Every structure is written in structure tokens, then in C-alpha cells.
């Protein structure tokens, strides 16, 4: 997958996106000059008694100026239950963390709107 030279990327190295929607989101943030990082933080959600991590969550994007984590999911709406559950757990365990889930429907709508030049 292409990985352009980003201007607003605040991470190290080159981000390796998991899918097209993540890449498009990165391009969008970059276009509007919103600083972003890719998968900078892994949050532990569950750990065993011996300290071993049994469940973790690494949101796709972090926007430092907004102090906001974004998770992009390209799964169909009916299949996002697991991600919703992870996000809910993240909010329970880390109430100070500001995180949003962007669904496939949101990404598609956004792409459509941007083609139509209606996104403000």
C-alpha cells in the first residue's frame, strides 16, 4: 500500500497502514494540517494474575493537539461488536482517555462528502 511523505505525521519511521481506510484518514488529516501519529499507544485492557497481558487495544491514530485517539474500522456494521466492546473497556479502564470509533459507514460517508466538497 502507498505511503506518501506526510507533512503532519508526528511519529517515527513510516506508518504501515492496515487498510485503505486508514491511509485515506491519514491523507485527510495531513491535508488539513492536523498533526497525527499512527498507533503510538497500546492500552492494556486485561491482564492475568501473573501480570501477563491478555487483552490490549492499540487505537489507529492519535491527534496530539486534540488529545484524541481514533480507531478506524472497515468491518461491516454488524461485525463491529468486538471493537465497540474494546472501546467501552478502554473508557472504563482509562476514563481520562478521549477515544472515538470511526465506522466503515463514517469513512464512506466522509469520502463521498469530500468528493462533493461538502465536508466542513
Amino acid at each position, binding site marked *: 500500500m502507498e505511503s506518501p511523505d506526510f*507533512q503532519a505525521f508526528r511519529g517515527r519511521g513510516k506508518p504501515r497502514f492496515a487498510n485503505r481506510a486508514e491511509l485515506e484518514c491519514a491523507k*485527510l*488529516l*495531513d*491535508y*488539513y*494540517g*492536523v498533526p497525527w501519529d499512527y498507533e503510538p499507544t497500546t492500552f492494556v485492557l486485561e491482564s492475568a494474575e501473573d501480570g501477563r497481558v491478555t487483552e490490549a487495544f492499540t487505537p489507529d491514530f492519535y*491527534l496530539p*493537539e*486534540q488529545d*484524541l485517539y*481514533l480507531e478506524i474500522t472497515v468491518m461491516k456494521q454488524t461485525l463491529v461488536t468486538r471493537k465497540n466492546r474494546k472501546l467501552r473497556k478502554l473508557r472504563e479502564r482509562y476514563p481520562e482517555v478521549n477515544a*472515538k470509533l470511526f465506522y466503515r459507514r*463514517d469513512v464512506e*460517508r*466522509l469520502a*463521498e*462528502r*469530500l*468528493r*462533493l*466538497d*461538502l*465536508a*466542513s
Partner: protein
Amino acid sequence: MSAGETYLTASQLLARARELGAAITRDYDGRDLVLVVPLRGSFIFGVDLSRSLSLPHEIDFVELEPYHRGRRGVRLMKDLDGDIRGRDVLIAVDVVDTGLTMHYLCKTLRLREPASLRIATLLDRPYRRLVDDLPVGYIGFTVPDELFVGYGFALEEQHRNLPDLHIRAA
């Protein structure tokens, strides 16, 4: 392609613009107001809002390069004609969605040191916001996640002239 069902009529839109205008008139009484209208989608709302203000103000326009043109970064295709330093700036915009465009515009205008900077938006989709640090002071309608045409909103540059706001036909 035709416009779909009517979501808000021209009279509802004008009535809301007048309500916002009355609130803005109260808030900006005695201040040096500049109404900034981003082209092109906001021009009808900008005009209705301007005519609803019972106080002297300047109206100016900006135009940002749309994302789909594929350049490396957003830029102003048309800049303000006037100076805003030390003045009270109110951006009259058609819709705030992700907040990315307004984020860029506010950042750009703040560099010019206005006395204050706020946003009056006709439509708002707060649940779609990617950037939340926007000075949104006035909201016309909070709307569902639909695409609209009419009242300045276009589909392939058509339908901006329709007096009512329509949900775009599928």
C-alpha cells in the same frame, strides 16, 4: 439527478437565520464585527445571516481549495479582502462536520490576531467531529448524517439555488 425530499423549508431556514441574527446582534453590540463567509456552500446562509443582523458589520469571503483536487495541503484560493486584526470575526458557515476545514480556517485567521473569533454554523453534525477545539458559538440545526442539496448546498455544482434544503435523493 434530482433533489430529494424537503428537510427544511426556505421559511424555516430564514426564521432560524433571523433567530441567530438576533442573538448575534445582542452579543456583538458596539463591536467591530466582520462576517467571514466561506465560498461556495455558505453564501446563501451568509447573506440571510447578514441581513438578519441589526448592527453595522463588514462581510468578506474566503474560498478554500477542496480536498478532492488532490494537492498536498489545503490552501486559500481566495483570501479575505480586508484586515481583521483587532476586529471581531464571525465565520458564517453552511455545516460543521469533521471540523477539519474550520480547524484550518480558524488557525489561519488567528494568525492575523483578530480580537475574537467564533463560528456560526447553519448545520451541525457534532457526532462526526474529528477535531473538537472549534469556537462554535451559534448553531442553526443539528442534523442527521444525510447529504443535503439546496440553500447553497450543491451536488456536482447543481441545486445550490433551491430555496429549500433537501435530503439528497439516493
